């Protein structure tokens, strides 16, 4: 039996007095062996990041380890001096973080930032440091190491920055790598590459990895074993295969069942006779930048978009960040002006109408946004938010309120909650309220712009089910914007894949998932984590 590199036993970390529970983490124990990848999975607030930070001594000041021990190759880290911890960081424990955009110092070159590790922990000469840094940049498969060395973080893409972070964390070959959701902020294709890189490097050096994630797909892809956290308590821990294919704890079962599957379920065909609610023809959105040096430049955020949605149908637009999928949503809802083309809402072209002439269209088209925390005015009760629309169109307050109560029941919230404020609701509840607000207008077309992306997987599943129900019962047309193929597979009748502002593939969901045609679609499919894994159902 090899000695574990990291051994956490009976760890309890207290939350500050005003926290929503007593402990962030309650008597958690697990080991990470050399060369093993342990995935710590949990929803937001489960305490998984707190554990990660405690292992490298970077806990926020408000959090205190109350009891238990964290041993690195047998050496106790709880209560050890700050100096000792500093010596260990990067030499024996490396760490990478979630946000590659902000985790690097913007005013230092990437090379200097990696070199800083060597400056701090070694006595290498300047020349040797440089060689080693360049060498490491090469090992993380970044092109043109010399140029990368001189580059500032903002000149690199998110994936490249994450590679620089990995280079920094691993240059001294630590025995333990802590990765705190390192791919969560990345696009799916980039995520696949970074996961592959982590796997490759830790395999070579037999590094133990503590990998924090909320995504069971990533777990399936990377983990040797899994520990599932719920509200700071470890509910299940075993090899990845066992946990994913045969979960024991009901919470794990629920989580795994919530992971959307890649295969679209059987769906009823939308009859051709159904009314065409949305039709765009050659829709363009161009942004003009006028710079003195470069002159007038045009960038097309969306070009030549032609889509159709019938009553009762859901069209998904899938794409990575910057693909222009949200631009399409905002054009269709006329939150931004349209450069060219037609947008027909139930046959009426709204592309060129002035804002003040859009009254009729605003009734018919409603949108639900991504961020549940910013979509509701924090100073207004949710009742006020829901009745705002109907009252704009002449409904009396009394009538609007009684409708709002019905809508609250429809979205499965307590109707008495109408006079509460948004901060009194959780993220999933707020998203339900946003849906209720949209439905209060009795729209024909509902646009969901990444509406479930910010939610935990179990909440996501519930909100998706709600959207499905509503679409069926009200026969809404729905435009569903998402970056997540699995989510699209679950709710869409047809799917358009966007890349660089263009639709590269547009087909019925069933067809698209069974037999993708375009190279880009195929690469998206290939990159989706956990795609080949058979999850328990």
């Amino acid at each position: 039996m090899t000695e574990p590199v990291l051994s956490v036993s009976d760890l309890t970390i207290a939350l500050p007095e005003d926290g929503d529970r007593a402990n962030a983490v309650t008597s958690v124990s697990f080991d990470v062996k050399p060369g093993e990848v342990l995935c710590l999975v949990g929803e937001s607030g489960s305490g998984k990041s707190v554990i990660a930070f405690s292992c490298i001594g970077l806990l926020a000041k408000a959090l205190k380890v109350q009891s238990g021990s964290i041993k690195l190759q047998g050496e106790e880290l709880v209560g050890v001096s700050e100096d000792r911890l500093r010596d260990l960081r990067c030499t024996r424990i490396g760490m990478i973080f979630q946000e590659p955009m902000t985790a690097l110092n913007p005013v230092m070159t990437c090379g200097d930032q990696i070199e800083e590790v060597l400056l701090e922990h070694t006595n290498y000469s300047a020349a040797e440091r440089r060689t080693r840094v360049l060498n490491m940049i090469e090992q993380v498969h970044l092109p043109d190491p010399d140029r990368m060395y001189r580059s500032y973080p903002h000149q690199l893409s998110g994936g490249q920055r994450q590679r620089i972070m990995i280079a920094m964390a691993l240059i001294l070959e630590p025995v333990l790598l802590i990765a705190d959701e390192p791919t969560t902020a990345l696009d799916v294709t980039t995520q696949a590459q970074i996961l592959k890189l982590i796997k490759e490097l830790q395999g070579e050096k037999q590094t133990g990895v503590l990998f924090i994630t909320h995504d069971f797909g990533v777990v399936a892809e990377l983990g040797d074993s899994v520990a599932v956290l719920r509200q700071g308590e470890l509910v299940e821990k075993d090899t990845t295969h066992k946990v994913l294919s045969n979960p024991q704890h009901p919470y794990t079962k629920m989580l795994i069942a919530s992971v959307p599957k890649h295969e679209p379920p059987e769906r009823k065909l939308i009859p051709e006779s159904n009314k065409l609610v949305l039709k765009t023809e050659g829709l363009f959105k161009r942004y003009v930048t006028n710079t003195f040096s470069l002159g007038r430049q045009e960038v097309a955020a969306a070009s030549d978009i032609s889509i159709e949605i019938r009553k009762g149908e859901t069209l998904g637009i899938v794409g990575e960040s910057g693909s222009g999928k949200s631009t399409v949503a905002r054009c269709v809802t006329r939150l931004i002006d349209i450069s060219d083309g037609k947008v027909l809402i139930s046959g009426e072209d709204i592309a060129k109408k002035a804002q003040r002439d859009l009254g009729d269209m605003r009734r018919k088209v409603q949108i639900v946004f991504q961020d549940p925390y910013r979509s509701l005015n924090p100073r207004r009760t949710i009742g006020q938010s829901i009745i705002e629309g109907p009252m704009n169109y002449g409904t009396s307050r009394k009538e609007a309120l009684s409708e709002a109560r019905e809508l609250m029941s429809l979205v499965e919230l307590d109707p008495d909650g109408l006079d509460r404020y948004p901060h009194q609701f959780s993220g999933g509840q707020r998203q339900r309220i946003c849906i209720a607000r949209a439905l209060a207008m009795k729209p024909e077309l509902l646009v969901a712009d990444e509406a479930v992306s910010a939610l935990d997987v179990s909440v996501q599943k519930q909100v998706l089910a709600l959207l499905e129900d509503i679409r069926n019962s009200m026969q809404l047309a729905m435009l569903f914007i998402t970056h997540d193929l699995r989510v699209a597979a679950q709710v869409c009748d047809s799917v358009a894949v966007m890349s660089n502002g263009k639709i590269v593939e547009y087909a019925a969901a069933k067809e698209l998932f069974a037999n993708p045609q375009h190279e880009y679609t195929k690469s998206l499919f290939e990159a989706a984590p956990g795609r080949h894994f058979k999850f328990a159902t």
Partner: protein
Amino acid sequence: MWAYLTRRLLSVIPVLLVVATIVFLMLRLTPGDPAANIAGDAATTEDIAKLRVELGLAEPLPVQFGIYIKNLVQGDFGESFYYKRSVISMVADGVGPTLSLALFTIVIACLVAVPLGTLAAYKQGSWLDRTVMGFSVVGFSVPVFVIGYVLIYFLSVKLGWFPVQGYQPINEGIVGWAYRLILPSTALSVIFIALIARMTRTSVLEVLNEDYIRTARAKGLASRKILLKHALRNAAVPIVTIIGIAIGILISGVVVTESVFVIPGLGLLTLDAIQGRDYPTVQALIILFSVVYVVINLVIDLLYTLLDPRIRY
């Protein structure tokens, strides 16, 4: 870069045009007749009318405005109503003392405030932090002339360490020049120390919460190194910005300080000119001060590119 510079220089023009217009309107539309002022109490209505024609005040307003703008563009600020000297030469006489006072003040302020603010942020919540922040509120609240008189009374009148008032040009000896500037600059620098120290603290604190500071800690760097190497460099942009904003307050402060310490600079000149309704001089001085403000802020904008590689024009 050059293109940006050109564009920025061009963008200064509308601002200055607005300033020139405001100054013109302010002087012409407010009640009070400079001709009557200059002519004195004994003047007859005819005398005043004659003087008005001489001074160009008899023309209709739009014509006056046209002449005024034309002269400004040519760099001709005209002649003082009183001293019958070119305004430019009068301004030139006052630049030395004012510039000395302003530079001395800014240097003192930055040298004291940036380290204080950084330390306060580093030791957030400590007695040092509280003292610096407490001083900063007080510094905002004490008017510069009160500080000036307190310093004069105790250090000059009571202890006799410094001359009470006055100024000595730099070419008459650098020691005497600096010696006489110590009190006025100290008085004037209080508000800037307060302002800059507070801004430094805020920006350093903010930077210390950034993700890359956590990264630096995860690398095993000591706190002091993180503060100097990572935090201060990143906090530089807001600190420099506040120094730019402070220039406006500095100019205002200079006027009062020169009055308290009897320094024959542009501030005293402005006060005299305004009270005597010496239009050409007032116009020239206000425009000059505005140009200084605009140019310094332009320079600061350009400094950003050195401080932050993300900003490229």
